[in-house]
């Protein structure tokens, strides 16, 4: 395998609905933004593309990625669609990485989109729940928030995690997004407001859950040769990993923890793993990505993380899967202030505020979650962070992490069925 660089990225504003543009135009706008950011780059340097969108039900147009491909003027270059539930965008990013790393392509475009506004919210929830076993899970009351609520209930039981700790994630991500003009749902919240918002599935309230969105995102990945010609601040993709777990969470084993280099077996002597409280696929993805990137202790070696916070609870669970803290310490981790941005007043007591910002962009909770675009959106924000160009792209530098060296992006599907972790490094 050879080195792979991200040389540009673009995103549309994520919104409840974009009735004035279809998915092709959204992708085109994100693509044009990415092209404008590398003026020396030309379309004939592109060898092919990978498109991602999650749901044929939402799109009601099979082979929609072919329509984006022709709209971008990339025919007859190689193209394919990648689909993997909520991790669709992360899988698309890694698929483009594979094309360049293997030498098959010198430059590959990853584009993703979702148009979720075409049905009402509850029909949308039904579509999403069809990504659970339709014989044994869906008919019982197919609802992803219900599934995540059961998982976090068990996390609370195992570790003493509290709803207030979960609400702190909501406060953090919604408030970060106040400085991100691409975000759909930026606002100042208190823990009390999160808890008093309508209950969706106990213990998760409306403000614990990301919203449905329309949006698109594009990443351009390239070999060293192409990169040297067009980009003076490329970001290197130094690690990719992914993992999986059983579709039915009822089927998850209760065995031993997959250890990261900085952990010992004795840390988890009595823990039954993953059960339904943790994401084994996320741990596997992290382990593989860290191995490739040479990371021994993620909390010391990462500058920021953009992770898949479809729920406040899953952000806490993911801190642990990624080894930012030990299993069981996710609630205390957010309470300590470590994952908050430095220099932002959240109205909370945060003794270690800003040591490792998680979801500086506002994450899915505040940016929105147009599924096929989401994992690529994380890559674009991480790219801008590592280039130090947040001010240029967001119009202000409140979310710029100071001198970032390494960022982690994490994309997550189903109840943890596919998960990707990719590591990006500054020039």
């Amino acid at each position: 395998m050879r080195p792979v660089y991200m040389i540009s990225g673009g995103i549309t504003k994520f919104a409840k609905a974009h009735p004035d543009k279809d998915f092709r135009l959204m992708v085109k706008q994100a693509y044009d933004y990415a092209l404008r950011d590398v003026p020396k780059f030309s379309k004939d340097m592109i060898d092919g593309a990978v498109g991602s969108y999650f749901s044929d039900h939402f799109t009601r147009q099979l082979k929609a990625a072919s329509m984006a491909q022709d709209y971008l003027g990339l025919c007859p270059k190689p193209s394919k669609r990648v689909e993997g539930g909520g991790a669709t965008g992360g899988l698309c990013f890694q698929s483009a990485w594979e094309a360049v790393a293997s030498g098959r392509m010198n430059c590959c475009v990853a584009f993703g989109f979702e148009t979720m506004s075409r049905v009402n919210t509850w029909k949308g929830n039904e579509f999403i729940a069809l990504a659970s076993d339709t014989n044994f899970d869906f008919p019982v009351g197919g609802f992803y928030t219900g599934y995540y609520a059961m998982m976090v209930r068990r996390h609370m039981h195992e570790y003493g995690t509290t709803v207030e700790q979960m609400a702190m994630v909501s406060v953090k991500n919604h408030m970060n997004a106040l400085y991100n003009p691409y975000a759909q749902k930026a606002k100042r919240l208190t823990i009390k407001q999160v808890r008093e918002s309508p209950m969706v599935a106990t213990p998760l309230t409306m403000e614990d859950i990301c919203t449905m969105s329309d949006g698109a995102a594009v990443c351009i990945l390239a070999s060293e040769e192409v990169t040297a010609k067009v980009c003076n601040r490329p970001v290197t993709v130094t690690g990719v990993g992914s993992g999986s777990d059983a579709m039915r969470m009822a089927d998850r084993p209760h065995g031993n923890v997959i250890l990261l280099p900085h952990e010992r077996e004795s840390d988890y002597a009595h823990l039954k793993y993953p059960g339904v409280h943790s994401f084994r696929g996320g741990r596997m993805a992290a382990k593989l990505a860290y191995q490739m990137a040479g990371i021994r202790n993620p909390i010391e070696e990462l500058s920021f993380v953009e992770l898949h916070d479809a729920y406040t609870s899953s952000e806490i669970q993911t801190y642990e899967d990624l080894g930012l803290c030990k299993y069981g310490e996710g609630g205390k981790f957010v309470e300590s202030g470590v994952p908050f941005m430095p220099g932002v007043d959240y109205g909370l007591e945060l003794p270690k505020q800003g040591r490792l910002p998680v979801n500086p962009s506002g994450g899915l909770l505040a940016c929105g979650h147009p599924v096929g675009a989401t994992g690529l959106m994380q890559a674009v924000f991480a790219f801008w962070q590592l280039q130090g160009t947040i001010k240029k792209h967001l119009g202000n530098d409140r979310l710029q992490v100071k001198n970032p060296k390494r960022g982690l992006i994490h994309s997550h599907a189903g109840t943890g069925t596919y998960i990707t972790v990719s590591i990006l490094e500054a020039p």
Partner: protein
Amino acid sequence: MDPLIIQDHYEIDYRHSYAEDSPFFVALTKGKLLGSRCTACGYTYATPRSHCMECGAPTSWHELPLAGRVHTYTTCHYGGELFLKETPFTLILVEFDGADTLFLSRLKGAEPEAVRIGMPVVARFAKTPSFKVTDVWFEPA
């Protein structure tokens, strides 16, 4: 010009086979809960599958006890459109003695505030089967 927006209806009936899982659904009509036990390693599944996820060997049908415990729970106040009219409803994962995995079901007949992890529950079966997994649900023991 404002975008032109139309309503577009879509509906379809599927012919769905439970295939190798069929005995589970038939057993529900007889008041039995079937799981699977691996013929090679003995791993026991509370939700059936015809091959073992651990070792790949075929499984045999294994009758589960009708009493179990709540492993985790939630009460849904919203849901997918299909289930909205049934809200609020309580979902549980059930654990059984002698089974290595869990079973997703509804808990009926309990106040949401009274549900606890570890709470004993018993299976109840529909008198008129619909040949769906909802032909079984649980109630407090």
